Protein backbone atom coordinates (compact mmCIF):
# COMPACT_ATOMS: atom_id res chain seq x y z
CA UNK A 1 0.00 0.00 0.00
CA UNK A 2 1.34 3.40 -0.85
CA UNK A 3 1.99 5.84 2.00
CA UNK A 4 -0.60 8.51 1.36
CA UNK A 5 -3.59 6.15 1.61
CA UNK A 6 -2.56 4.51 4.83
CA UNK A 7 -4.37 6.84 7.23
CA UNK A 8 -7.25 7.74 4.98
CA UNK A 9 -10.02 6.93 7.47
CA UNK A 10 -10.05 10.35 9.14
CA UNK A 11 -9.98 12.06 5.75
CA UNK A 12 -13.03 10.13 4.63
CA UNK A 13 -14.84 10.96 7.85
CA UNK A 14 -14.11 14.65 7.38
CA UNK A 15 -15.17 14.50 3.76
CA UNK A 16 -18.47 12.86 4.66
CA UNK A 17 -19.15 15.43 7.37
CA UNK A 18 -18.31 18.21 4.96
CA UNK A 19 -20.58 16.77 2.26
CA UNK A 20 -23.42 16.42 4.78
CA UNK A 21 -22.93 20.03 5.84
CA UNK A 22 -23.06 21.25 2.27
CA UNK A 23 -26.13 19.13 1.56
CA UNK A 24 -27.87 20.50 4.66
CA UNK A 25 -27.00 24.04 3.61
CA UNK A 26 -28.31 23.48 0.07
CA UNK A 27 -31.51 21.90 1.37
CA UNK A 28 -32.07 24.76 3.85
CA UNK A 29 -31.36 27.33 1.15
CA UNK A 30 -33.79 25.67 -1.27
CA UNK A 31 -36.53 25.88 1.37
CA UNK A 32 -35.79 29.42 2.49
CA UNK A 33 -35.11 31.22 -0.81
CA UNK A 34 -38.38 31.78 -2.66
CA UNK A 35 -38.94 30.85 -6.26
CA UNK A 36 -37.52 33.36 -8.73
CA UNK A 37 -35.36 35.17 -6.18
CA UNK A 38 -32.34 36.65 -7.93
CA UNK A 39 -33.72 36.27 -11.44
CA UNK A 40 -33.69 40.03 -12.13
CA UNK A 41 -31.83 41.18 -9.04
CA UNK A 42 -31.82 40.83 -5.29
CA UNK A 43 -35.58 40.33 -5.05
CA UNK A 44 -38.35 37.85 -5.83
CA UNK A 45 -39.27 37.96 -9.52
CA UNK A 46 -42.86 36.94 -8.73
CA UNK A 47 -43.35 40.23 -6.86
CA UNK A 48 -43.75 41.93 -10.25
CA UNK A 49 -46.76 39.76 -11.00
CA UNK A 50 -48.14 40.31 -7.49
CA UNK A 51 -48.09 44.07 -8.00
CA UNK A 52 -49.51 43.68 -11.49
CA UNK A 53 -52.43 41.59 -10.21
CA UNK A 54 -54.24 44.58 -8.65
CA UNK A 55 -57.61 45.20 -10.32
CA UNK A 56 -57.98 48.28 -12.51
CA UNK A 57 -60.60 50.81 -11.30
CA UNK A 58 -60.16 53.61 -13.84
CA UNK A 59 -60.93 52.22 -17.28
CA UNK A 60 -59.23 54.99 -19.25
CA UNK A 61 -60.83 57.31 -21.80
CA UNK A 62 -60.31 54.92 -24.69
CA UNK A 63 -62.91 52.60 -23.14
CA UNK A 64 -65.52 55.42 -23.02
CA UNK A 65 -65.47 56.54 -26.64
CA UNK A 66 -66.66 53.17 -27.95
CA UNK A 67 -70.19 53.78 -26.65
CA UNK A 68 -70.33 57.51 -25.95
CA UNK A 69 -69.57 58.93 -29.38
CA UNK A 70 -72.20 61.65 -28.81
CA UNK A 71 -70.12 63.03 -25.93
CA UNK A 72 -67.01 62.86 -28.07
CA UNK A 73 -68.83 64.98 -30.64
CA UNK A 74 -70.09 67.40 -27.97
CA UNK A 75 -66.60 67.86 -26.58
CA UNK A 76 -64.97 68.30 -29.96
CA UNK A 77 -63.18 71.64 -30.10
CA UNK A 78 -64.22 72.63 -26.59
CA UNK A 79 -61.82 73.54 -23.81
CA UNK A 80 -62.77 70.37 -21.98
CA UNK A 81 -61.98 68.16 -24.95
CA UNK A 82 -58.77 66.67 -23.63
CA UNK A 83 -59.89 66.01 -20.06
CA UNK A 84 -60.23 62.32 -19.20
CA UNK A 85 -63.87 61.29 -18.70
CA UNK A 86 -63.09 59.80 -15.32
CA UNK A 87 -61.55 63.05 -14.08
CA UNK A 88 -65.13 64.22 -13.45
CA UNK A 89 -67.21 61.04 -13.55
CA UNK A 90 -65.03 58.94 -11.25
CA UNK A 91 -63.70 55.41 -11.68
CA UNK A 92 -65.78 53.55 -14.27
CA UNK A 93 -64.18 50.15 -14.77
CA UNK A 94 -67.22 48.49 -13.12
CA UNK A 95 -69.46 50.36 -15.62
CA UNK A 96 -67.34 49.16 -18.55
CA UNK A 97 -67.13 45.60 -17.24
CA UNK A 98 -70.92 45.50 -16.81
CA UNK A 99 -71.25 46.72 -20.42
CA UNK A 100 -73.14 49.85 -19.45
CA UNK A 101 -74.63 48.62 -16.16
CA UNK A 102 -73.47 50.02 -12.81
CA UNK A 103 -74.27 53.52 -14.01
CA UNK A 104 -72.28 56.27 -12.31
CA UNK A 105 -74.10 59.07 -10.51
CA UNK A 106 -74.12 62.48 -12.17
CA UNK A 107 -71.64 64.74 -10.38
CA UNK A 108 -72.99 67.78 -8.52
CA UNK A 109 -71.72 70.75 -10.52
CA UNK A 110 -71.58 73.07 -7.49
CA UNK A 111 -69.10 70.66 -5.91
CA UNK A 112 -67.27 69.47 -9.00
CA UNK A 113 -66.67 72.66 -10.97
CA UNK A 114 -65.16 74.77 -8.13
CA UNK A 115 -62.51 72.09 -7.52
CA UNK A 116 -60.83 73.30 -10.67
CA UNK A 117 -62.33 76.75 -11.25
CA UNK A 118 -62.54 78.35 -7.80
CA UNK A 119 -60.27 81.40 -7.85
CA UNK A 120 -56.98 80.97 -6.05
CA UNK A 121 -53.67 82.81 -6.18
CA UNK A 122 -51.90 79.46 -6.43
CA UNK A 123 -53.44 78.70 -9.80
CA UNK A 124 -51.71 79.74 -13.02
CA UNK A 125 -52.75 83.30 -13.93
CA UNK A 126 -54.09 82.30 -17.35
CA UNK A 127 -56.33 79.56 -15.97
CA UNK A 128 -60.08 80.43 -16.01
CA UNK A 129 -61.22 81.03 -12.41
CA UNK A 130 -64.28 82.44 -10.69
CA UNK A 131 -65.04 83.54 -7.16
CA UNK A 132 -67.63 80.88 -6.45
CA UNK A 133 -69.62 82.86 -3.86
CA UNK A 134 -70.10 85.74 -6.30
CA UNK A 135 -70.43 83.87 -9.58
CA UNK A 136 -74.16 83.04 -9.79
CA UNK A 137 -74.25 81.39 -6.36
CA UNK A 138 -77.79 80.02 -6.53
CA UNK A 139 -78.11 77.65 -9.49
CA UNK A 140 -76.08 74.72 -10.73
CA UNK A 141 -73.15 75.68 -12.99
CA UNK A 142 -74.66 73.55 -15.74
CA UNK A 143 -77.68 75.87 -15.95
CA UNK A 144 -75.50 78.16 -18.10
CA UNK A 145 -72.37 76.15 -19.00
CA UNK A 146 -72.58 72.77 -20.66
CA UNK A 147 -70.14 70.52 -18.84
CA UNK A 148 -68.73 68.97 -21.99
CA UNK A 149 -68.45 72.27 -23.90
CA UNK A 150 -68.42 75.02 -21.26
CA UNK A 151 -68.01 78.13 -23.40
CA UNK A 152 -71.28 80.11 -23.51
CA UNK A 153 -72.22 81.17 -26.98
Amino acid at each position, binding site marked *: MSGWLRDKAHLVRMAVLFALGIAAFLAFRAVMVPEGFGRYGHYRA*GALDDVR*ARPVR*YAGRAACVDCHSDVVAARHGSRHERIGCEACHGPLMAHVAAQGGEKPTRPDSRVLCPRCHAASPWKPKTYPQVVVAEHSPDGPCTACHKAHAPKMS
Partner: protein
Amino acid sequence: MNNERRQFLRETGKFLVLTASASVAWEAVLAGRPETAPNYKTADHWWGMVIDIESCIGCGNCVRACKEENDVPRTPTYFRTWVERYRVEPDDLEHPAVDSPNGGFDGFNDRAAADPTAKHFFVPKLCNHCAHSPCVQVCPVGATFESPDGVVLVDKTYCLGCRYCVQACPYGCRFIDPRTNTADKCTLCYHRITKGLTTACCETCPTGARQLGDLKDPKDAIHTFLREHHVLVLKPQMATGAKVYYNGLDGSVR
Protein backbone atom coordinates in the same frame (compact mmCIF):
# COMPACT_ATOMS: atom_id res chain seq x y z
CA MET B 1 -10.84 6.81 -38.78
CA ASN B 2 -13.89 8.03 -40.64
CA ASN B 3 -16.07 6.11 -38.24
CA GLU B 4 -14.48 7.78 -35.25
CA ARG B 5 -15.10 11.22 -36.62
CA ARG B 6 -18.75 10.40 -37.31
CA GLN B 7 -19.13 9.06 -33.82
CA PHE B 8 -17.49 12.13 -32.37
CA LEU B 9 -19.82 14.45 -34.30
CA ARG B 10 -22.87 12.45 -33.27
CA GLU B 11 -21.92 12.50 -29.59
CA THR B 12 -21.07 16.19 -29.63
CA GLY B 13 -24.28 17.00 -31.46
CA LYS B 14 -26.33 15.08 -28.90
CA PHE B 15 -24.51 16.84 -26.10
CA LEU B 16 -25.15 20.29 -27.54
CA VAL B 17 -28.82 19.67 -28.33
CA LEU B 18 -29.53 18.14 -24.93
CA THR B 19 -27.70 20.89 -23.06
CA ALA B 20 -29.57 23.59 -24.95
CA SER B 21 -32.97 22.01 -24.38
CA ALA B 22 -32.14 21.37 -20.74
CA SER B 23 -31.17 25.02 -20.24
CA VAL B 24 -34.38 26.19 -21.91
CA ALA B 25 -36.39 23.85 -19.69
CA TRP B 26 -34.50 25.08 -16.62
CA GLU B 27 -35.27 28.70 -17.59
CA ALA B 28 -38.96 27.78 -17.73
CA VAL B 29 -38.73 26.14 -14.33
CA LEU B 30 -37.02 29.21 -12.87
CA ALA B 31 -39.56 31.54 -14.47
CA GLY B 32 -42.37 29.99 -12.45
CA ARG B 33 -45.85 31.35 -13.14
CA PRO B 34 -46.57 32.66 -16.62
CA GLU B 35 -46.67 36.45 -16.75
CA THR B 36 -50.14 37.91 -16.36
CA ALA B 37 -49.52 40.33 -19.22
CA PRO B 38 -47.93 38.10 -21.84
CA ASN B 39 -47.30 40.85 -24.39
CA TYR B 40 -45.55 43.12 -21.93
CA LYS B 41 -41.76 42.86 -21.98
CA THR B 42 -40.07 44.58 -19.07
CA ALA B 43 -36.87 45.05 -21.05
CA ASP B 44 -38.67 47.24 -23.62
CA HIS B 45 -39.71 49.97 -21.18
CA TRP B 46 -38.17 52.54 -18.88
CA TRP B 47 -40.86 54.52 -17.13
CA GLY B 48 -40.74 58.12 -15.99
CA MET B 49 -43.03 61.08 -15.63
CA VAL B 50 -43.07 64.77 -16.43
CA ILE B 51 -44.88 67.24 -14.20
CA ASP B 52 -45.64 70.72 -15.49
CA ILE B 53 -45.86 73.01 -12.46
CA GLU B 54 -47.26 75.79 -14.64
CA SER B 55 -50.28 73.62 -15.49
CA CYS B 56 -51.11 72.33 -12.02
CA ILE B 57 -54.29 73.89 -10.60
CA GLY B 58 -54.33 71.98 -7.31
CA CYS B 59 -57.68 70.31 -7.94
CA GLY B 60 -56.58 67.17 -6.08
CA ASN B 61 -57.93 64.79 -8.73
CA CYS B 62 -54.63 62.89 -8.75
CA VAL B 63 -54.69 62.38 -4.98
CA ARG B 64 -58.28 61.12 -4.98
CA ALA B 65 -57.80 58.91 -8.03
CA CYS B 66 -54.61 57.41 -6.58
CA LYS B 67 -56.28 56.49 -3.30
CA GLU B 68 -59.26 55.06 -5.20
CA GLU B 69 -57.20 53.04 -7.66
CA ASN B 70 -54.64 51.72 -5.23
CA ASP B 71 -56.72 51.33 -2.06
CA VAL B 72 -54.52 53.69 -0.06
CA PRO B 73 -55.76 54.28 3.52
CA ARG B 74 -58.11 57.28 3.45
CA THR B 75 -56.67 58.70 6.68
CA PRO B 76 -54.56 61.83 6.21
CA THR B 77 -50.79 61.15 6.33
CA TYR B 78 -51.06 58.12 4.03
CA PHE B 79 -50.39 59.20 0.46
CA ARG B 80 -48.80 57.68 -2.59
CA THR B 81 -49.14 61.04 -4.28
CA TRP B 82 -50.00 64.41 -2.80
CA VAL B 83 -50.01 68.08 -3.78
CA GLU B 84 -48.04 70.74 -1.91
CA ARG B 85 -48.90 74.40 -1.98
CA TYR B 86 -46.01 76.88 -1.92
CA ARG B 87 -45.99 80.56 -1.05
CA VAL B 88 -42.57 82.10 -1.58
CA GLU B 89 -41.45 85.65 -0.88
CA PRO B 90 -39.60 86.64 -4.04
CA ASP B 91 -36.35 87.48 -2.22
CA ASP B 92 -36.34 84.55 0.21
CA LEU B 93 -36.09 81.17 -1.49
CA GLU B 94 -34.82 79.60 1.71
CA HIS B 95 -38.09 79.89 3.62
CA PRO B 96 -41.09 78.98 1.52
CA ALA B 97 -44.44 78.58 3.29
CA VAL B 98 -45.55 75.08 2.37
CA ASP B 99 -48.74 73.32 3.30
CA SER B 100 -50.68 70.36 2.04
CA PRO B 101 -53.99 70.02 3.92
CA ASN B 102 -54.97 66.35 3.67
CA GLY B 103 -52.42 66.06 0.87
CA GLY B 104 -54.75 68.03 -1.39
CA PHE B 105 -57.35 65.25 -1.23
CA ASP B 106 -60.12 67.80 -0.59
CA GLY B 107 -58.67 70.36 -2.98
CA PHE B 108 -57.50 73.79 -1.84
CA ASN B 109 -60.48 76.02 -1.32
CA ASP B 110 -59.46 78.74 1.12
CA ARG B 111 -58.33 82.06 -0.31
CA ALA B 112 -57.37 83.66 2.99
CA ALA B 113 -53.65 82.92 2.90
CA ALA B 114 -53.09 84.82 -0.35
CA ASP B 115 -50.30 87.38 -0.29
CA PRO B 116 -50.03 89.84 -3.17
CA THR B 117 -46.28 90.27 -2.81
CA ALA B 118 -45.44 86.56 -2.91
CA LYS B 119 -45.47 83.97 -5.64
CA HIS B 120 -47.76 80.99 -5.37
CA PHE B 121 -47.74 77.60 -7.02
CA PHE B 122 -48.60 73.94 -6.51
CA VAL B 123 -46.13 71.07 -6.57
CA PRO B 124 -47.55 67.57 -7.06
CA LYS B 125 -45.33 64.93 -5.55
CA LEU B 126 -44.99 61.19 -5.89
CA CYS B 127 -42.28 58.56 -5.87
CA ASN B 128 -39.54 59.66 -8.24
CA HIS B 129 -38.81 56.08 -9.29
CA CYS B 130 -35.09 56.65 -8.90
CA ALA B 131 -32.74 54.58 -11.01
CA HIS B 132 -30.29 54.50 -8.08
CA SER B 133 -32.80 54.45 -5.31
CA PRO B 134 -31.70 55.01 -1.70
CA CYS B 135 -34.73 53.11 -0.39
CA VAL B 136 -33.73 50.02 -2.37
CA GLN B 137 -30.14 50.23 -1.18
CA VAL B 138 -31.09 50.13 2.50
CA CYS B 139 -33.63 47.30 2.36
CA PRO B 140 -32.06 44.46 4.35
CA VAL B 141 -34.14 41.64 2.86
CA GLY B 142 -34.60 42.48 -0.82
CA ALA B 143 -38.27 43.38 -0.36
CA THR B 144 -38.01 46.56 -2.42
CA PHE B 145 -36.37 46.83 -5.76
CA GLU B 146 -36.04 48.69 -9.03
CA SER B 147 -37.89 46.62 -11.61
CA PRO B 148 -36.26 45.99 -15.01
CA ASP B 149 -38.58 48.64 -16.49
CA GLY B 150 -37.54 51.30 -13.99
CA VAL B 151 -40.31 51.23 -11.38
CA VAL B 152 -39.51 51.01 -7.67
CA LEU B 153 -41.81 48.40 -6.14
CA VAL B 154 -42.37 46.65 -2.81
CA ASP B 155 -42.73 42.91 -2.34
CA LYS B 156 -45.44 42.88 0.32
CA THR B 157 -44.92 39.22 1.15
CA TYR B 158 -41.25 39.83 1.87
CA CYS B 159 -41.30 43.18 3.67
CA LEU B 160 -40.50 43.04 7.39
CA GLY B 161 -41.85 46.52 8.13
CA CYS B 162 -38.48 47.66 9.50
CA ARG B 163 -38.98 51.22 8.18
CA TYR B 164 -35.41 51.72 6.93
CA CYS B 165 -36.73 52.62 3.49
CA VAL B 166 -39.18 55.16 4.92
CA GLN B 167 -36.24 56.99 6.47
CA ALA B 168 -33.98 56.57 3.48
CA CYS B 169 -36.30 58.12 0.88
CA PRO B 170 -35.16 61.74 0.46
CA TYR B 171 -38.56 62.66 -0.94
CA GLY B 172 -40.74 61.26 1.85
CA CYS B 173 -42.64 59.06 -0.56
CA ARG B 174 -43.01 55.96 1.59
CA PHE B 175 -45.19 55.02 4.51
CA ILE B 176 -46.04 51.94 6.52
CA ASP B 177 -49.48 50.64 5.65
CA PRO B 178 -51.21 50.31 9.05
CA ARG B 179 -53.30 47.36 7.84
CA THR B 180 -50.41 45.12 6.76
CA ASN B 181 -47.54 46.77 8.65
CA THR B 182 -45.47 46.69 5.46
CA ALA B 183 -43.92 49.50 3.42
CA ASP B 184 -46.15 51.05 0.80
CA LYS B 185 -45.53 53.53 -1.96
CA CYS B 186 -46.44 54.65 -5.46
CA THR B 187 -46.16 51.76 -7.91
CA LEU B 188 -46.53 54.13 -10.87
CA CYS B 189 -49.78 52.14 -11.30
CA TYR B 190 -47.70 49.18 -12.41
CA HIS B 191 -50.88 47.13 -12.85
CA ARG B 192 -52.11 49.74 -15.34
CA ILE B 193 -49.00 50.72 -17.29
CA THR B 194 -48.18 47.09 -17.99
CA LYS B 195 -51.61 46.77 -19.62
CA GLY B 196 -51.20 49.81 -21.85
CA LEU B 197 -53.14 52.24 -19.65
CA THR B 198 -51.71 55.38 -18.13
CA THR B 199 -51.53 55.91 -14.36
CA ALA B 200 -54.67 56.86 -12.44
CA CYS B 201 -53.24 60.29 -11.61
CA CYS B 202 -52.36 61.06 -15.23
CA GLU B 203 -55.72 59.69 -16.40
CA THR B 204 -57.64 62.09 -14.17
CA CYS B 205 -55.38 65.15 -14.40
CA PRO B 206 -57.62 67.72 -16.15
CA THR B 207 -54.83 70.01 -17.36
CA GLY B 208 -52.26 67.44 -18.45
CA ALA B 209 -49.90 68.65 -15.75
CA ARG B 210 -48.82 65.05 -15.28
CA GLN B 211 -47.69 62.91 -18.18
CA LEU B 212 -46.49 59.35 -17.88
CA GLY B 213 -43.66 58.61 -20.29
CA ASP B 214 -41.75 55.61 -21.53
CA LEU B 215 -38.19 56.77 -21.92
CA LYS B 216 -37.29 53.72 -24.00
CA ASP B 217 -40.02 54.38 -26.55
CA PRO B 218 -38.60 56.82 -29.11
CA LYS B 219 -42.12 57.77 -30.22
CA ASP B 220 -43.29 58.75 -26.74
CA ALA B 221 -44.22 62.42 -26.34
CA ILE B 222 -42.04 62.64 -23.23
CA HIS B 223 -38.96 63.07 -25.41
CA THR B 224 -40.41 66.13 -27.13
CA PHE B 225 -41.39 67.58 -23.77
CA LEU B 226 -37.97 67.03 -22.26
CA ARG B 227 -36.29 68.52 -25.33
CA GLU B 228 -38.47 71.62 -25.44
CA HIS B 229 -38.58 72.48 -21.73
CA HIS B 230 -36.03 73.25 -19.08
CA VAL B 231 -36.73 70.52 -16.59
CA LEU B 232 -35.29 69.55 -13.25
CA VAL B 233 -35.61 66.63 -10.88
CA LEU B 234 -36.11 67.07 -7.15
CA LYS B 235 -32.91 67.13 -5.09
CA PRO B 236 -30.52 66.47 -7.98
CA GLN B 237 -27.61 66.78 -5.53
CA MET B 238 -28.68 63.45 -4.01
CA ALA B 239 -27.78 61.68 -7.29
CA THR B 240 -30.73 59.33 -6.97
CA GLY B 241 -31.35 59.08 -10.70
CA ALA B 242 -34.89 60.41 -10.20
CA LYS B 243 -37.13 60.00 -13.25
CA VAL B 244 -39.91 62.45 -12.38
CA TYR B 245 -39.02 65.58 -14.32
CA TYR B 246 -40.50 68.91 -13.25
CA ASN B 247 -41.01 71.78 -15.65
CA GLY B 248 -41.04 75.23 -14.06
CA LEU B 249 -39.71 73.99 -10.73
CA ASP B 250 -38.91 76.86 -8.38
CA GLY B 251 -35.62 76.89 -6.49
CA SER B 252 -37.49 76.97 -3.19
CA VAL B 253 -39.02 73.53 -3.66
CA ARG B 254 -37.55 70.87 -1.38
